């Protein structure tokens, strides 16, 4: 078994290096096939596994390409690479343990097993995963990483953004292609191909920084940054001068770029490991705790979403979930461990970072779009200035936002910048309507939201805005 990473490990003169695994050269990149690798892992475990041990291998093999353009200087940095990472979790009669690292051939996985076994500090009693369910997702996505496409995309987008007059700090095009796979010592295995292309921009304005972008789980050249350009244009217009204070007697309308962190905060509150530490939330399952206009969905294969998944990172089938349906709380997003803590079944929402234990997450989490029209008199916030954190205190989203006050359907005056401290659950209880304009936002953990219409923010009191 060998992960084929021919970047620089060739007998090649420097003038012709490196074979561009990830840079759109002629010919397909040489990623090893998941079925072959998982078969090798099975053979390895058959050789080195011990009686009484349960093992889970999580493998990720991928290649990435990033083009970072600074339009002011013309400097374009291109960065590409590829590698295979593995995490081995073992449950032994004494406890559980974990080891992770880059791998290139079988002996490194064997070393990871040995490292895990010798781990001086054994982690807690996370239950052994049950047998994996075979999902779909075995098909390699069409398209490939392409340096040329990324460069053209960056240049084209920079030209589109130029008329907006913003000072662009960075314009980033990111592409990735690879697969993740799980092997369980019971013999079950599953894998899924993953792809992503996204475009992100950060620009400075005299009122602060704006960050926006678009993302797609495909590599077929279908990325359309124009949508982000439109949002940025609206945001820049709202930020062009100081505005009035918030009139708390008017309904508060949050356009998607402003509502995004609030929706990401709701997704966080519904993570099983978070919910498990909030007994009141767990007790509310089955109850209608939000207005009927609120339904939220997590759709791993939403056609407009930023990811396309059939299984989670523990190898469980990932299907559409609707944790809030017409205001009724129905459940949470789970890993094996968080599901076990609450005594429910896992539901395919385990994610993994580069290192560490799986954690509960979401795939294309979004507020279901509605049909609400905008009130004629309203405060409408369309611009959100970047802050280093949007949730300094758990459960409270902190925003700096600007927009417009509308009277009789017409723009009356500019509003903001406002500092808003929005308690996530309480804010969604004030939801009066949901617009039809569902927008997925890579800068907000990939969450999606339409325009949200909230009741006049007298409920914030003096403490919620200034």
């Amino acid at each position, binding site marked *: 078994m060998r992960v084929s990473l021919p970047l620089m490990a060739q007998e090649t003169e420097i003038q012709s*290096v490196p074979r561009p695994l990830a840079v759109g050269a002629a010919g397909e990149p040489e990623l090893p096939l998941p079925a072959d690798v998982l078969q090798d892992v099975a053979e390895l475990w058959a050789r080195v596994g011990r009686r009484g041990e349960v093992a889970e291998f999580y493998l990720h093999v991928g290649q990435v390409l990033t083009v970072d353009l600074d339009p002011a200087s013309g400097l374009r940095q291109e960065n590409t690479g590829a590698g295979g990472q593995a995490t081995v979790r073992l449950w032994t009669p004494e406890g559980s343990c974990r080891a992770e690292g880059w791998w290139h051939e079988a002996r490194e996985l064997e070393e990871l097993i040995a490292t895990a076994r010798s781990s001086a500090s054994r982690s807690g009693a996370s239950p052994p995963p049950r047998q994996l369910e075979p999902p779909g997702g075995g098909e390699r996505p069409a398209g490939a990483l392409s340096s040329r496409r990324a460069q053209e995309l960056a240049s084209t987008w920079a030209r589109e953004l130029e008329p907006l007059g913003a000072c662009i700090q960075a314009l980033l095009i990111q592409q990735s292609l690879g697969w993740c796979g799980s092997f369980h010592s019971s013999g079950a295995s599953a894998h899924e191909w993953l792809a992503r292309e996204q475009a992100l921009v950060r620009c400075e304005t005299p009122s602060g920084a704006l960050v926006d972008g678009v993302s797609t789980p495909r590599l077929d050249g279908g990325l359309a940054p124009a949508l982000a350009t439109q949002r940025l244009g609206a945001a820049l217009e709202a930020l062009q001068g100081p505005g009035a204070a918030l009139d708390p007697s008017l309904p508060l309308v949050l356009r998607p770029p402003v509502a995004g962190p609030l929706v990401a905060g709701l997704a966080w509150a519904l993570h099983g490991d978070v919910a498990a530490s909030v007994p009141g939330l767990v007790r509310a399952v089955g109850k209608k705790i939000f207005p009927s206009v609120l339904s939220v969905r997590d759709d791993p294969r939403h056609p407009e979403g930023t990811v396309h998944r059939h299984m989670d990172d523990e190898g469980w089938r990932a299907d559409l979930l609707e944790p809030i349906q017409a205001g009724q709380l129905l459940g949470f997003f789970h890993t094996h461990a968080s599901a076990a803590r609450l005594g429910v079944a896992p539901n395919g929402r385990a994610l993994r970072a580069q290192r560490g234990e799986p954690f509960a997450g979401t795939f294309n989490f979004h507020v279901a779009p509605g049909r609400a029209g905008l009130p004629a008199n309203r405060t409408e916030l369309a611009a959100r200035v970047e802050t280093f954190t949007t949730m300094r205190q758990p459960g409270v989203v902190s925003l700096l936002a600007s927009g417009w006050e509308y009277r009789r359907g017409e723009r009356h005056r500019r509003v903001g910048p406002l500092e808003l401290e929005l308690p996530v659950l*309480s804010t969604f209880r004030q939801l009066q309507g949901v617009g039809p304009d569902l927008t997925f936002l890579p800068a907000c953990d990939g969450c999606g939201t339409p325009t949200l219409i909230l009741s006049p923010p007298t409920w914030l009191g003096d403490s919620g805005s200034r």
Partner: protein
Amino acid sequence: MPPGTLESFFVEHRLLTEVSHGGGALRLVRSEREVGCSVELTRGGQPLHVWEPLPRGARTPAALPAAASSRLALLRDPTAMAAPLLEPLRELTLSLEQAVRQAGGSAVDVLVHDAWQKVCCGPAEAWAEEERRHTLIELRVSVDQEKRPAHLWRPFWFQDPGALAAARGQLETACVELVQSLQAWPAPAPCPEGELPVVFPPGAASGSFFHEVCGHPLEGDVVARRGSYLAVRLGERVAEEFVTVTDDPTERSSALHYGFDDEGQAARRVALLERGVVGQPLLSRDTAGILGRESNGHGRRVSFRHYPLPRMTHTGVAAGPHGTLEQLLAPVGRGLLVQHLVPRHMNLLSGDFSFFIIEAREIRDGRPGPLIGPGVLSGNGLQALSDLEAVGGERRSLFATRGCRKLDHGPLAVSFTQPSLRFRRLRVTPARLP
């Protein structure tokens, strides 16, 4: 793919270990070892960085210069970099717990973070090799007060785990002092509101202030696009004569230091503000080229998977003429002594900033008073720098325990040095949490 010309390479062996102590148990949180390399090629006049992990099974990359390849076998040898032993850490944490309990505290949570890196990088004809290491310990001391615990947090840094273990007495004393602080002020006072004199004590986590307000606005890429309020004021006076702010990776006594950056360029002290005048930008090779200058050794990488960007390393305020912390506090009738700030937002163009106040005490009649509740410290960089009215003489260093993020590059280890400082006024607002 057109051929490229090798400009430089970067090879690293990195070992990260994190150990936590809480609830009476020591736990290995993180143990990561990785070896990887990156080469920078020039293609069509633009840089192309290609990286690859180098686990044991990987062959030596052919793209590396022959001399560097010969060092690679030594550099990637795992036996040359062993993770810290857990038993001395167990003994240390138990002694800290004992000290806290004897002082009347209820618990101490400990996080030890050891980062060890061997790096070999630079242009093929002039590469350099270096070993870098630092060990951090964070203490979070708790005291049960009126049915709910109160906490204070302090970080400390050492050159390696051996130096950490040898500092047991110092850390026990720190734990006891934290317990006593919490006991002295059993309930936090409300955060005041208004424009107040603000004092930073030496070596406090308020050092992030100069990192955000002076450092990021003078990074080479920001200066190249004239994208900050300081970038358009190079050479202009913005503060008093006694205010000098530097980023100096060469300060051997500082928390974070190196002899050359991640592009193999010799590290240099850079004065961001020199005697109150806006000084030089922090430069990597690329940004130096754009600005028509030479690199000053501030091209830094998060890992081999990242290309170098102009970044800060060890940002510090030079010692000033105004004496001790007590002397800086003395003339303040009512103000704020700010120990710990966390950045909230920084507007590079206008210089407007805000920080969350995590730990601060009221100043009453020239003396530290009660701890206060959470708040926000805000203002404008130009105004704040001109309002910096006193700089003390005693400097201390501190690591930023969560590192620094820039674009999609982060977190990167950075540190600060700071003497006592007094601002004539900064805006203080209570955190208005619902």
